[in-house]
């Protein structure tokens, strides 16, 4: 028997009931993501890429097909699949520290078991000294760092990121991309990263999955054979630009219709 894939979608479809009509968000998606693979899902807006992520997270159930994580069907959300949301979705009534320790506390772990890890994570994402701040006192980029730290502290098998840097300014976004590269190169987790930004997908991912316009299907899957460790310098290389040109053409085909 072969080892189960980290994430596997088998002929997955999702329909929503909207008033009197039905909207097909995604249709017949087949997708396999290996262990420690960083996969980016790229597609035009409204193509259902967030729906794919919500299905893997367990926030939504497929109307057809199966969603498997580590060979097990996804039933409900849980800490094995950590989600980083676009708007950070921090608990505004908790401080940075209480947000990051929400998961371990919910699991009733002893503080001694998680506090050292929390401290090193806060170091890693550059939030030392902000432990007692409330989300309202943080910039967009810092909120997203908290969002990443509170998920990493749970040591999830899969990291699901839904356009996490989409609402940040260009400067902050590239800082966060480098930070994520650093985190990933250290932890080597399976990542499913939803984005509509071609450069972001190429800079971060091992594989770029291009989706069609709605109803979303997997259009093609392109391996990103750029050497690691990657930095912003990577985006200047000829190989990067070759890939970018190719992806741009693929995405254009979908946006035109």
């Amino acid at each position, binding site marked *: 028997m072969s080892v189960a894939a980290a994430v596997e979608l088998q002929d997955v479809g999702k329909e929503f009931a909207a008033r009197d009509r039905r909207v097909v968000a995604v249709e017949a998606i087949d997708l396999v993501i290996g262990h420690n693979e960083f996969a980016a899902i790229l597609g035009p807006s409204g193509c259902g890429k967030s729906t794919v992520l919500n299905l893997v*997270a367990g*926030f939504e159930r497929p109307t057809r097909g199966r969603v498997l994580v580590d060979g097990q069907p996804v039933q*409900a*959300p*849980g*800490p094995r*699949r*950590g*989600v980083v*949301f676009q*708007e950070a*979705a*921090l*608990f*505004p*009534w*908790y401080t940075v520290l209480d947000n990051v320790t*929400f*998961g371990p506390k*919910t*699991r009733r772990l002893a503080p001694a078991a998680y506090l050292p890890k929390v401290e090193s994570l806060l170091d890693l994402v550059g939030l030392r000294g902000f432990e007692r701040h*409330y*989300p*309202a*006192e943080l910039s967009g980029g810092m909120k997203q760092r908290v969002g990443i730290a*509170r*998920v990493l502290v*749970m040591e999830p098998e899969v990291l699901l990121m839904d356009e996490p840097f989409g609402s940040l300014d260009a400067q902050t976004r590239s800082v966060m991309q480098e930070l994520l590269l650093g985190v990933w190169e250290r932890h080597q987790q399976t990542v499913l990263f939803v984005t509509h930004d071609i450069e972001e997908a190429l800079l971060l991912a091992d594989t770029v999955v291009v989706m069609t316009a709605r109803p979303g299907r997997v259009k093609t899957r392109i391996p990103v054979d750029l050497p690691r460790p990657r930095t912003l310098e990577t985006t200047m290389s000829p190989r990067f630009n070759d890939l970018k040109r190719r992806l741009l053409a693929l995405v254009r085909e979908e946006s035109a219709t």
Partner: protein
Amino acid sequence: MALPLLLLLLWHVAVTRRWVTEGIIPAPAQVAASWYTWIFGASTQTLSPYSGTWMANVLHSARRVFQGFLLAAAVGIPLGIFIGWNRLVARVVDPSIQLLRPVPITAWLPFAIAVFGIYDASALFLIGLGAFYPIVVNTTHGVRDTNLLLLRAARMLGAGPATVLTKVVFRSALPSIFTGLRLGIGVAWTAVIVAEMIAVKSGLGYVLWDAYYVGRMDICVATMFSVGLLGLISDQVILRVAQLVLRWRALEAHA
């Protein structure tokens, strides 16, 4: 503070210049003097039956408001959370609340007296019922407004229903709950006056009605001021507690 002083002056002038019928509306100075005697006067030797009884009556009313309000919050907040959280509970309970809510507290008076008699229980029932509606309605709204992303985030971090309710839904509904509490304490002061006028024989409402019967309009007006003052103080207390508990929200407003 300019407008209240101006109104006071207008009142004074209206009485001394006899713009109003003589002997019905007392002058501010007379009200102040009567109020002073009511608070600080010796309780037995004087002719006035009101002398020195202010504090005791204030304590009666305040205790009833506090107890009725506590009762309303203890029932209204948990019930509001369940109505807002669970569609089945909403379908079972909400229609009854919406049907009963338009019935004014005053309309419940005969019912309360018939069931509970001329006792504290009548007053507590009316105060509790009056304060209950705004608390339960605002709590329900607050719960329903909980951000879906925060619910997802909590569940993704491993939270079960109990943790989601206490650490996310309740916390998120707290600003609305405090709005309900502030509206509720206002209704509680209204209800205590109505209840004490008829259903019990002590407190500011009782004094108000009693003073009216014996033609002591100065005491009536002093009672009105007393109720206003107590209402203001209790509202401020809730407001301060809210500011303390919702510190994170004040930061949001400044951001």
